[in-house]
């Protein structure tokens, strides 16, 4: 069974390490915050200007002056702080954030990512994604392995305008966990429960290294 969005987020949450600062992109990445493993203390940065972002407010307690990068009303945890956009991206560019999780329209086998523009059709802009992918040491992409037509989104080369080059370290899709090898090429690490290596290979256009037994993800 391919993972649903919650499960993708849940699998990514297993990557969290104690005392990490983490930036979660809009969409599936946001859900990662719901699955922080026991005993792991992480702090969430939202690039519009908060560290120590907490859960959504209780109804009636929303504050228009307190939102996340997805423009959602949020709360601040004890120890939180606010700062301006220049400082926020100083943190990001200065590599003070240990993990960035974001969505993608396409990723390539050398770690390129495309997620901001479909020429002639949709141009919402890159927001903070280009700064994040150009700066972060550790980038995990959360995505569906294929598009609605069944075509692979894990490609030899991205066809859409790039957001960043050679930056993705790991991909967690609905089918698999893959690592981007330093020399280029992807390595299959885990399969979604019940999904075969053959199914994953068939859904992957990129060069995919499969070595030995590939374990199923566990939750």
């Amino acid at each position, binding site marked *: 069974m391919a993972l649903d969005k919650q499960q993708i987020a849940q699998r990514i949450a297993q990557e969290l390490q104690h005392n990490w600062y983490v930036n979660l992109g809009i969409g599936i990445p946001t859900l990662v915050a719901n699955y922080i493993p026991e005993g792991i203390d992480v702090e969430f940065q*939202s*690039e*519009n*200007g*908060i560290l120590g972002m907490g*859960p*959504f*407010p*209780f*109804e*009636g*307690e*929303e*504050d*228009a*002056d*307190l*939102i*996340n*990068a*997805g*423009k*959602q*009303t*949020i709360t*601040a945890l004890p120890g939180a702080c*606010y*700062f*301006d*956009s*220049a400082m*926020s*991206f100083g943190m*990001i*560019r200065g590599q003070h954030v240990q993990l960035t999780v974001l969505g993608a329209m396409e990723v390539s086998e050398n770690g*390129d990512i495309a997620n*901001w523009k479909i020429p002639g059709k949709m*141009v*919402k*802009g*890159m*927001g*903070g*994604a*280009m*700064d994040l992918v*150009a*700066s972060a040491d550790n980038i995990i992409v959360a995505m569906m392995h294929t598009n609605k037509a069944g075509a692979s989104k894990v490609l030899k080369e991205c066809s859409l*305008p*790039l*957001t*960043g*080059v*050679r930056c993705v370290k790991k991909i967690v899709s609905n089918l698999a966990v893959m690592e981007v090898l330093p020399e280029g090429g992807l390595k299959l690490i885990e399969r979604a429960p019940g999904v075969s290596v053959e199914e994953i290979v068939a859904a992957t256009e990129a060069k995919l290294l499969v070595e030995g037994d590939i374990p199923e993800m566990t939750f």
Partner: protein
Amino acid sequence: MNKVVKNVEEACQGIQDGMTIMLGGFGLCGIPENSISELVRKKVTDVTCISNNAGVDDFGLGLLLQGKQIKKMISSYVGENDEFERQMLSGELEVELTPQGTLAEKCRAAQAGIPAFFTPAGYGTEVAEGKETREFNGKMYVMEEAYKADFAIVKAWKGDTAGNLIFKGTARNFNPSMCGAGNVTIAEVEELVPAGELDPNEIHIPGILVNRIFKGENYEKRIEQRTVRQKS
């Protein structure tokens, strides 16, 4: 040093057709609502706006788009706005998309008299096309130049008569870095107090970066995505 002007009309005096205007805010959070209304009322046209977002159809900079007052938008993210998309795809509206951190730093560079700096954001993408790139310590960077604007318009929480500003929560966002990045900086504030009432240690932006300050009125502070959880 008294920076107080009596109202939004006086604050916006001198803003003319064809000018470049920098506006604070992230989405609808921390936008200078009063000044945007005044720009609508004044019907200034052909303006270039530097602002992280373009508002929504019926609020924020969306109001200027409705009136076709904007010639060019410089932003990082422009989703959630149908009229924007229509004008852009039809070619009526020029759009320059800049990575968010680069946008913030280009404003801060203008404030701080730095004409250009290097950032890794956008290297290897179309954002870097036509720009100088260079390697530092084994990593590639793009050279970006400071933004200069005729007017910078920001929204703060508290301000004093000397122009000192304090922002609130995530409504801070782009506002501080835009102060002093325009030839004239206008600050609208929710609360305006006499100089000396703000703790000098808690001021986010020194009054030297603000030319005109006024107390804004009737803030709507519209929420774009009202997300809540239930009390269990």
